[in-house]
């Protein structure tokens, strides 16, 4: 695996004290990839429309 030296140095500085194990680091990176904050907003917006329909007596 080839990674830029400067990037590794920066990353190491950032990670120090944050992750005790390699598993913790990989877990964090995967969480970052799969996290779906956008999905929470989608859900809230759908609920708002449902509430509006409820207010109008249609559901």
């Amino acid at each position, binding site marked *: 695996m080839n990674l*830029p030296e*400067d*990037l590794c140095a*920066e990353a190491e500085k950032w990670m120090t004290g944050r992750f005790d194990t390699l598993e913790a680091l990989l877990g964090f990176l995967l969480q*970052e*990839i*799969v996290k*779906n*904050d*956008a*999905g929470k*907003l*989608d*859900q809230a*917006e*759908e609920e*708002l*429309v*449902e509430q*509006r*329909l409820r207010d*109008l007596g*249609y559901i």
Partner: protein
Amino acid sequence: MKKRSLILVTVDCLRADHVGFLGYSRPVTPFLDSLTSNTFVFSNALVAGAPTYFSFPAIIASRYPLALGRDVLGIAPGEPTIAAALHQAEYATAAFLAGNPYLNVRSGYHQSFDTFRDFLDSALPGDSITSNGAKGRLSKINIQLEGASRQHRLTSQAYDELYFWYCQWRTARENLSMDSLRRYPAADVIVDQARSWLSSLGDEPFFLWIHLMDPHHPYYPPREALAAVGASEMTPRRARFLNSVWNRDVSTGRLQRYREEIVSLYDAGVYWADKQISRLVHTLQQFRRWDDTVFVVTADHGEQFLEDGSRYHSPTNLRQQLIHVPLLLRAPEPAKPRRFTQPFSLIHLAPTLLHAVGAEIPESFQGRSRWDEILAGELPNEPAVSECLDGCNNPYQVADRMRHRLVTVRRGDHKLVLNFNKRTDCMYDLKNDPEERSPIPIGSLPQERARLLQVARTHLHETRQGQTTELRLRARVRELQQMASTEERVLD
């Protein structure tokens, strides 16, 4: 049977009410107007999102712009698109896009094109009226003055006013031309490239996508185009002044006095796009490819000229000036020319075009082919949804993409606007209120309001349930890779 070719022409910022075939009185689209005698015209075509970055996922991939999650930008790696479908069907594919910063490799628009040019590498001189003044002693004094002026609103306004006129004065002696001021390659440059590519082909089927930026601000059309729209007295200096003043954060009242001239500049851009589209069609005729080509012209969104005080095409609203676009579709069959007045969402464009050329339609497309209905002259009257993220002006910043949605649902003459930021829903009757000035009172037409709300609810539900995890993850990984490479460049 010989496979049909396909040409998709998209014109940035082209609003529906500024083309002759949809009623504009100024003769800005003589060529497209002439085509309508044997084409299908959709007088109520609506984009699925605006501006560019919320519009093209629907045009190219028949996917609502937020359907992979609002944090996903552009076309996901490996996402089925019209280009991918035709590439798989062994079409030669090419895209020549006039420098729109959101239609590029980074956003995945290059996928499945044998030839892809986004013209983002051709540095054009641009409109930098302050670039000469940022040096030396004067500059230091200016920085101090600006700093001091920002302490009070009135002094800040006075500084902005003085600085604006100072810049105008400083640049007054520069030798200018429209060509040197233009930011994007003009349509003739794009069409030249397309012609050259077409001339390199044998008789294989092809898919060509060209995107023209001529009506996009800053507005610097060629002189010939200005003369054609009756604005031959416009000088490059005046055009630069107008573009500068139009970009200022001043009252609508002050801007209003420049509106007519700005519209002339914009119209001249539309004229130039029309003229170059005409050259493209003549090339096809010359190469004997016109008769087996499906040809479509549309836009990614419109443009505002102070309607409700707005300029350009920022996603702070989804008014008709932004979402209503021209759509003209020409096919080789001897079908009767027709004009459809029903709302037609561009989410259906890609599957309809693939059907028209006889290619397979990817299952993932959210739109449905309407080709049979178009040929039969019976387009269904179905609701059209448009969406964007309220105020998201820089989608390259992840935080800017985590904003609330704006959604509109159009059905017949009624349009519902859902603003999730303000938590409002306003319904308009576009027949009697085309400017969307007076929302229908909440108690009126409750059933119609509920119907449109149901469409919005279904749209949001399907967005959430139908998200393709794999495409979403691929897009997220691409973004992280891009962030890493940016980081790498910064560290270098």
